[in-house]
């Protein structure tokens, strides 16, 4: 019995190690490669440990102005896309999660359906639109276009969040004579902060990682220096 338990624990441990290895080895390999001098990268067999570590690649990339500008652009676009999605999304979600009004359910399901919108289906006509209004190669066009994906899921997440808030707080605010707008700003919004953080992180990751729109709505970068 004891032997069986030890065997079981041992197999479980192996499973966990395989699991973590599969997830993390590619990351390790990227780090290992980044710290290996470039002349050693064409060596077979490959070096599995970066000793001594060579930081030359990092020095080169950090002194490369194209890299720095790209990084800044990514941060600006992803940051503003996130803020935009949160601002518009929180307003819409408050309406959908807390207010009673006709037409709410269809809107909710249309927005849910839009979380799966195939970007590839509109990349051509969106490109034409952006060029026609003179916004090609602007950070604004890119940040705005990310709303197509980030806004639906932000609204969806925040709506369920607003819905779960107890209605007593809201009613108390109304009894005290607050307008719906004041109730939103001073009661509901602060309570929804955890949901806003969650959807904000998701929106940022999506905008930071997006490739198709970024490649299409900006010209190709100049070739990297040798």
């Amino acid at each position, binding site marked *: 019995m004891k032997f069986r338990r030890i065997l079981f624990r041992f197999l479980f441990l192996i499973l966990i190690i395989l699991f973590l290895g599969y997830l993390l080895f590619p990351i390790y390999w990227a780090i290992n490669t980044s710290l290996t001098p470039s002349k050693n990268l064409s060596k077979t067999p490959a070096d599995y440990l970066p000793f001594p570590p060579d930081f030359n690649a990092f020095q080169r990339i950090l002194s490369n102005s194209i890299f720095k500008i790209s990084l800044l652009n990514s941060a600006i676009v992803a940051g503003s896309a996130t803020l935009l999605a949160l601002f518009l999304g929180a307003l819409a979600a408050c309406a959908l999660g807390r207010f009673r009004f006709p037409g709410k359910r269809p809107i909710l399901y249309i927005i849910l359906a839009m979380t*799966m919108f195939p970007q590839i289906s509109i990349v051509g006509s969106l490109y034409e639109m952006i*060029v026609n209004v003179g916004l090609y190669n602007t950070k604004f066009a890119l940040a705005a276009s990310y709303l197509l994906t980030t806004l639906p899921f932000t609204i969806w997440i925040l709506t369920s969040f607003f819905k779960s808030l107890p209605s007593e707080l809201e009613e108390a605010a109304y009894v005290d004579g607050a307008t719906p707008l004041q109730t939103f700003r001073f009661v509901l919004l602060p309570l929804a902060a955890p949901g806003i953080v969650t959807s904000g992180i998701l929106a940022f990751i999506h905008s930071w990682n997006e490739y198709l729109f970024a490649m299409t709505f900006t010209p190709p970068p100049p070739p990297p220096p040798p």
Partner: protein
Amino acid sequence: MIGKIISGNHLQRSQIKLAWVFLAPSLIALVVLGFYPLIRTFFLSFTDSTRGSVEAGNFIGLKNYLELFSKNEYWSSVFNTLLFTIGSVGLEFFLGLGFALLANSKFRARGYARAAMLIPWALPTVVAARMWGWMFNDVFGVINDLLVLKLGILSKPVAWTAQPVWAMISVILVDVWKTTPFVALILLAGLQQIPEELYEASQVDGANSFQKFFLITLPLLKPAIVVALIFRTLDAIRVFDVIWILTAGRFGTESIGTYNYRNLIDFSRLGFGSAISVTIFFIIAIFVVMYVKAIRIQDE
């Protein structure tokens, strides 16, 4: 009393008005960025428009669609997309279920294991594809190094991303690495909702682990499984990034997404490309309807 009723009505009316004021910016954004371009795409698919030309294209009816449906390239891209979808979603489901069960069982480093699951998911697909592309390199890649020199499983290096069949397998493997964590997280959330009492009761009744898994875990996990599968299928059908970076659609990996992009942007065939876009849209739409239905059932 009367004053209270009036103000209650007033409150409701001002709520309805405010609801639309709150919704308006989002709805306008989604119409401008989603619905309008979609209608444009439909319209363009019936014209011979080219990208970047000043004059508008001519209306040519169904010609684009007729050309599309008579093209082998199109059908082979549809076939490849199907292959990719079945391969990646199938693997992701079984691995994801395994990961979720592992991450749900109690062990000391569980928190770290769950955090590690997030890393591939949070990484840009482009970066993941580049990393794996380097690992798959036929001469200097670590995969060949491991399989040929270290383990001796293969007798000579394989050009993973540069020959038919292996190229598709490579693309699927990268996608599996990147998105299995996502499937695992959805299934993990489902697992955590299964009440512990059920397992305890079955324990009392003398059920073994297999019976517990097939008679309790799997049936109760079904809603989460349905959501994860539909979600992943949708993503797999519109796959673009990983293929574009890893193989550029060569060696039998051209998906319907990359084929569309090639025609739209690289060949500047806006009209013809739009016809491909429309077909993708309809394929996706079928799955979206299924997804919304699944969510609705759980909602009610």
